[in-house]
């Protein structure tokens, strides 16, 4: 059992999202607001803007003190935005500009901490259940 616990301890460190970045599109403007998982603004972190149907960087810069970044798009479409604070925290999202029929306004970010916790507990529960089933089967 101690071996399992030892394994789980190190396994569980993989669900650490205590300081990840979450990115949300700004409503009504082509831009984003970035925050750390604890709610603090992701101030002065790097932003890359990729234009629709392109792989090249359209614009790059830093968020402001409140974690905001707004840009002036040159065309309609889905703009991709990548955020990187240079210290291992990254996130990306898509911002629709213009008349897009069904844009994806949901940000693509790291797993929120609460969900990471639930996922971790579920995984541990599954492992213990599998272990119990395996032991019962041997008896």
């Amino acid at each position, binding site marked *: 059992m101690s071996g399992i*616990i030892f394994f*789980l*301890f*190190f396994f*569980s*460190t*993989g*669900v*650490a*999202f*205590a*300081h990840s970045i979450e990115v949300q599109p700004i409503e009504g403007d082509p831009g984003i607001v970035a925050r750390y998982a*604890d709610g*603090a603004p992701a*101030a*002065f*972190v*790097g932003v890359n803007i990729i234009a629709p149907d392109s792989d090249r960087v359209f614009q790059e810069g*830093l968020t402001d*003190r409140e974690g905001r970044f707004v840009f002036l798009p040159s065309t309609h479409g889905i703009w991709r935005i990548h955020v*990187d*604070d*240079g*210290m*291992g925290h990254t996130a990306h999202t898509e911002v629709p500009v213009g008349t897009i029929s069904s844009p994806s306004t949901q940000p693509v970010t790291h797993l929120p*901490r609460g969900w*990471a*916790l639930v996922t*971790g*507990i579920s995984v*541990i*529960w599954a492992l*213990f259940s599998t272990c119990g089933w395996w032991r019962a089967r041997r008896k």
Partner: protein
Amino acid sequence: MVLVAATILGGPVGSHAHEFWLDASEYRPDTAAEITIYLRGGHYFPASALAPADRVIHRLTATSSAGTRDLSSTTEKRERRASLVISDPGLHRIDLVLQRPQLEKPDAWARLLLVPSGSTSDPAQYASGKGLEILPLMPIETARVGHSLLINVIRDGIAVKARIQIVAAGGGVAWVDSMPEQPAAFTPRKPGRHLATVTDGGQTATLMFDVQP
């Protein structure tokens, strides 16, 4: 069972945001030797999973009795490397300050204490008095398995209450509490490199040190 699972899961989630630390190719180098300083980061010490970007490296310095000098580093895969010549036989304190551009305060500090072979160090020289620091109160080269090592946490030179997480490179995690009037006591159980981490006010400080058998 559930309690054990909750404890296992709850601890790491709350405390295992990734950290940055300094490492060295040798911890007791000879005087005049050239060694490599590593800037490393990640969740799984001692493995490095990421290197800090150029724009967040505010300062990387080496301080000895000869003074303080800036070190330049280059990215090599998932870490950064800098070269350091051990200029004199005394303590060499390597300091890394990570700070986002335009931000007034650092995000993190990382420190490495090197004492050349055959030399001793004075703990009074460990602190810079700036920012958040993990401060051994005993000569770091005397750290040995089974012997208690006293550690304080100071902010801008003043001792503060803090919980220190100490991870051994060979495996094992310990948490010790430091109070303004009473330093934390850590007893190493394994030889080798140890990473001490403290977080306070959204800022993080790390200290790497070596433990003798």
